[in-house]
């Protein structure tokens, strides 16, 4: 009897805490909406999702590569940068239109990333993992500083000319540009095709098998090296497309532009649970949305956005150490 009362009161307490937390969250959202009106809030959410879709394109490359070779590929953000620059040259110098430019960017990034993998990571496959991490950092430095040389891309900011005129539609006060539509459309198309490749094709099956257990996959007759190269290629293609879209959305490009989006996308991948593709997508949307919400609503938000982003990362880690979709690591003895 006594235990029952205690049990019920404790359970009530717990649900009271949950209710308070939910109420606090709700109240926070309502306060945000009321601060500048609902239109402003929805606008911020849409802009945030747009940014999140671009992060997703980078984050998927990180998460796939990590899932298969357990390597934090720091050079990925710079592959993204190369994609943006490729499309810039195609569009501005050679007057290509948008679709061929983005395809070219994807192709060049793919080739670049496969070359990087073959030259810098493959020889170190059996070395300690830290060695390939250091080479990843080295490759990242190399790409940044080599492309910053004056005869490559040059060290200055370059204004990116959009391949199509910007159109703005006013939907009940919310401004939606054709850029947003294109970004969301292309990202969704790429994501669906990625999902198709991974779930439905033979190479996708091989990728999943390799991610699960490399040596067992090799025993089953899977060409593990080929699968790893293919993973790098897929990631790079997505990053290349992401680079083009990013440059169209924020039309200023620099050879160092890949660092921060790269890190953010990586953090997004980790937030969602690294190695998990839906996780990377959800994490990226979350990251992009918080980014824009912080900038639009917090005083000094534009200066503190990185701080908040990484604070959220650490908080998520404290609550769920392997990210939102991550599976708990089983430790083998």
């Amino acid at each position, binding site marked *: 009897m006594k*235990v029952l009362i205690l*049990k019920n009161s*404790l*359970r009530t*307490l*717990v649900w009271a*805490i*949950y209710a308070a937390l939910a109420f606090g969250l709700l109240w926070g959202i309502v306060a945000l909406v009321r601060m500048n009106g609902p239109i402003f809030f929805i606008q911020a959410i849409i802009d945030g999702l747009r940014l999140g879709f671009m992060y997703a394109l980078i984050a998927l490359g990180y998460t796939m590569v990590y899932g298969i070779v*357990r390597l*934090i590929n720091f050079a990925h953000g710079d592959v993204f940068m190369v994609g943006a620059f490729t499309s810039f040259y195609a569009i501005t110098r050679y007057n290509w239109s948008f679709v061929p430019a983005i395809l070219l960017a994807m192709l060049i990034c793919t080739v670049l990333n496969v070359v990087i993998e073959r030259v*810098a990571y493959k*020889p*170190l496959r059996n*070395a*300690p*993992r*830290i*060695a*390939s*991490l*250091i*080479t990843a*950092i*080295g*490759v*990242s*430095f*190399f790409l*940044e*500083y*080599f492309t*910053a*040389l*004056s005869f490559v891309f040059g*060290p200055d900011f370059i204004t990116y000319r959009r391949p199509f005129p910007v159109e703005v539609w006013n939907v009940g006060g919310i401004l939606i540009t054709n850029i947003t539509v294109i970004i969301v459309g292309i990202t969704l198309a790429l994501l669906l095709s990625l999902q198709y490749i991974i779930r439905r094709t033979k190479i996708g099956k091989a990728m999943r098998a390799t991610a699960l257990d490399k040596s067992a996959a090799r025993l089953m007759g899977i060409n593990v090296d080929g699968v790893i190269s293919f993973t790098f290629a897929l990631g790079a293609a997505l990053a290349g497309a992401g680079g083009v879209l990013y440059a169209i959305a924020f039309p200023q490009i620099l050879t160092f532009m890949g*660092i921060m989006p790269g*890190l953010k996308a*990586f*953090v997004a991948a*980790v937030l969602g649970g*690294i190695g998990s593709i839906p996780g990377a997508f959800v994490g990226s949307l979350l990251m992009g949305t918080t980014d824009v919400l912080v900038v639009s609503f917090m005083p*000094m938000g534009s*200066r*503190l956005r*990185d*701080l908040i982003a*990484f*604070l959220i*990362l*650490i908080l998520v*880690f*404290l609550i769920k*150490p*392997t990210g939102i979709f991550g599976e708990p*690591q089983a*430790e083998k*003895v």
Partner: protein
Amino acid sequence: MRKLSLPSWIPTLIVGLIVFFGVLYARDNGHISAYRYQIFQIAVIASISALGLNLIYGFNGQFSLGHIGFYAIGAYSSALITKDYQMAWSGSRAGALAWMMAGQFGIIAGLALIRMLRLDRLRRKITQSTSSYLKEHETRMVCLLPVLFIVAAVIGLGVVATLGAHALLDPGLNALVEGLSDNVARNVIFVLAILNGGTMAALVAYLVGLPLLRLGSDYFGIATLGFAIMVFTGLQNSDMVIDTMRGARGMVAIPTWTTWGWVMATFALLVFLMRNLLRSSHGRAMISVREDEIAAQSMGVDVNQLKTMAFTVGGLFAGVGGALYAHLYGFLHPSTFNIIRGFDPLIIIVLGGLGSMTGTILAGVGVVVLIEELRVILPQGFEDWRFVIYPIILLLVMLLRSEGLMGTREWGWFRTPVPPERDIPLSTRQPATPATAASSEDV
């Protein structure tokens, strides 16, 4: 038969003295420019900071990418103290010092109190008594409430302790600064500033490490990376809190007191401490955590405590390095501590060999001197190639020697001597396994 030989500390000391006096002699006779003289100091400072990271990652196996954050904390906090001595920006000449020491005292007092309260035991008790009829997440919420209250109370007490300590320290330190002659007071302040830089960084490392070290290896690395970026962003906006730190404009007018003598003296002291720490029972336990956490735990090693300890001491090293760096140029800018520079200590320890103090020192000096010398060697118009050549060298070294220059080998006094015969019965002695294999799993 034992081979008769010199005690191993003699050649090491001789090499150290030769380097020390060699650089002094070369500077006094004009063999090296003032610029190169500064480069040597930076090289040794980079080694100090990298040694701290090697303790964390190389010897204890905790993959940390946030070392530059502690370096930055050490640099800025010590700079605040010495700048205060010269410019009295806080109102009195030792005000910043008094606040910083009092703040640390308050935090330590709060931490000690939390330890004494044994929160984990409280939590375990609640969990035990409620686990039969509550779900896990419900239990966690029930635990959260008293813990939150206690922590809030402790923070309040810490603030009181800080204010009390400040009330005591402030007049005392100001009297000390005013009472001593300028030359003596300067040195006292400098030593206290370096110490405070180190302890501030160590304290932050402790606070950061306490929750984060529970994460798995890669996740810990990413979380510390996040910490470093938070420090960087915080520093860029530091003028919102303390105006004299000047945020993204860079902190100026820090006295340039760092000399080769100070750098080398600090270096020698820290190297001495680290080498002896590693040879103590704690140090051996740290290495065992790197080799295999579960095995170490089953041998009765307190893994969590040792991880926190290594992380804290590593932070201390970074803080001291940062403090010395702050007083070298007299100018601090957040971009010095950005994430790109943050990879430097990691690169140094991997190049030198994880788990090798000798390797870290050599690689630290080597990397810094290489980067700066490339500036000189490269012909006119090719200066931008510096960071193109550096990663190529990095790649080549990694491809050719993936275990680093020294592996886990040590030289001279750093080499852990074989224990005397009587300590280990011959039958149980086994050949030492190379430690590089362990690091392959712990990235």
